[in-house]
């Protein structure tokens, strides 16, 4: 492939993907033809019910595919660009200073540093041993999965931009406050002392030209896609049956109002979903009657208090720290849902 094409490709894909995201919001019609199983002229009836059992997942996936290929391409290539262009070690050093601002920096930079969720725990460790300590490390740890930027793009695209904005804002405020509060506890300070003698090593950052970085971005994008798409496909396959068969009365009774917010905040903890699948799951529950406030609580609480990540972190800082932030995360998710329900849903 020519060097010019290698350099331009990621930017071209981002532009086209962005166009498929923005055009419908501006004009109300999609840029490319889409297939929607749900007929908009019968808003109270979900046409998915008309399809036989074995066709349900394929109809569902096809419908999403025609609407989501653009945002998917945009999200993966943008993710690749972020991995290839963001100077990770420089940002880590910047986040690691011991001022109050490091809480804010940890919250702001988290989405830029954890496109691949595997990097989350080492970077958390890095902040722990830096001058910043447990507080900003926890803020980073909580913000990264809750405001993972690919998840934000998809939340906006599949659910609503309003929910995406508040997911981001409440996650940020929650992450900063919880990080601060937990870092003041005795057990957290003990952990910090345990790691105080370790200093991080630095290595030479490889220098690449803009062309090389652009092509690296494409390679990273394909790594991301291979990592996420198979599980996403399997997840959406399963969710199609939820949307087809789960009784709506169950959802409306338990997942609306204040009870709904509380339940959604709590079930986030044992619910483990692979990256992006939680958004499709929440969307299908909303179609069934889940309240937006409950959806928000779930989208904030589930990533912050996910059991696999809690288990990994507990090996580094112990269960007292993890338990504290998990409980606070569920409370924060609950409060976010309540605030949304009371003040924002009518905006």
């Amino acid at each position, binding site marked *: 492939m020519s060097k010019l094409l290698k350099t331009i490709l990621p930017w071209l894909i981002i532009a086209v993907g962005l166009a498929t995201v923005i055009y419908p919001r501006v004009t109300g019609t999609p840029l490319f033809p889409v297939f929607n199983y749900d007929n908009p002229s019968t808003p109270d009836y979900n046409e998915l019910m008309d399809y036989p059992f074995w066709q349900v997942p394929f109809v569902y996936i096809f419908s999403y595919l025609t609407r989501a290929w653009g945002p998917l391409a945009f999200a993966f290539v943008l993710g690749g660009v972020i991995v290839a262009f963001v100077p990770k*070690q420089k940002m880590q050093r910047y986040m690691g200073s011991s001022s109050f601002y490091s809480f804010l920096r940890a919250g702001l930079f988290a989405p830029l540093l954890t496109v691949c969720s*595997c990097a989350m*725990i*080492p*970077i958390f460790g890095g902040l722990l041993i830096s001058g910043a300590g447990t507080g900003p490390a926890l803020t980073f740890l909580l913000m990264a999965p809750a405001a993972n930027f690919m998840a934000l793009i998809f939340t906006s695209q599949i659910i609503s931009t309003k929910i995406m904005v508040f997911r981001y804002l409440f996650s940020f405020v929650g992450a900063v406050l919880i990080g601060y509060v937990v870092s003041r506890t005795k057990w957290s300070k003990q952990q910090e002392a345990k790691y105080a003698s*370790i200093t991080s090593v630095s*290595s030479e950052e*490889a220098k690449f030209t803009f062309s090389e970085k652009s092509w690296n971005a494409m390679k990273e994008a394909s790594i991301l896609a291979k990592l996420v798409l198979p599980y996403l496909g399997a997840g959406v396959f399963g969710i199609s049956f939820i949307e087809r068969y789960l009784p709506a009365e169950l959802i409306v009774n338990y997942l609306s109002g204040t009870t709904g917010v509380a339940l959604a905040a709590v079930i986030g903890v044992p619910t483990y979903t692979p990256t992006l699948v939680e958004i499709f799951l929440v969307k299908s529950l909303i179609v069934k009657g889940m309240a937006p406030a409950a959806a928000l609580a779930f989208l904030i609480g589930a990533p912050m208090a996910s059991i696999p990540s809690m288990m990994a972190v507990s090996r580094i800082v112990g269960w007292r720290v993890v338990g504290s932030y998990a409980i606070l995360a569920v409370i924060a998710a609950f409060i976010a849902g309540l605030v949304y329900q009371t003040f924002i849903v009518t905006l």
Partner: protein
Amino acid sequence: MIKIEVFGTGCPKCKQTGKNSKEALRELGLEGEVKQVTDQVAILQRGITLTPALAINGDVKAMGRIPEVKEIITWLSALR
């Protein structure tokens, strides 16, 4: 004998770094072991804050990216 350590919890990037290391050793015809360090606490205690990371004989050469085979060859050659 040369000791190459690959730090990472087992994601595809870490495995690729391991593969590149073995390939570099083979191309230079050197005796060496490639050890995968997957325990998070052990990784952190070495001061490593981004994975995948690679160390040759205890010296951390790359952090947060997959080093290419030719880069690893350059580092291995500089050891002599």
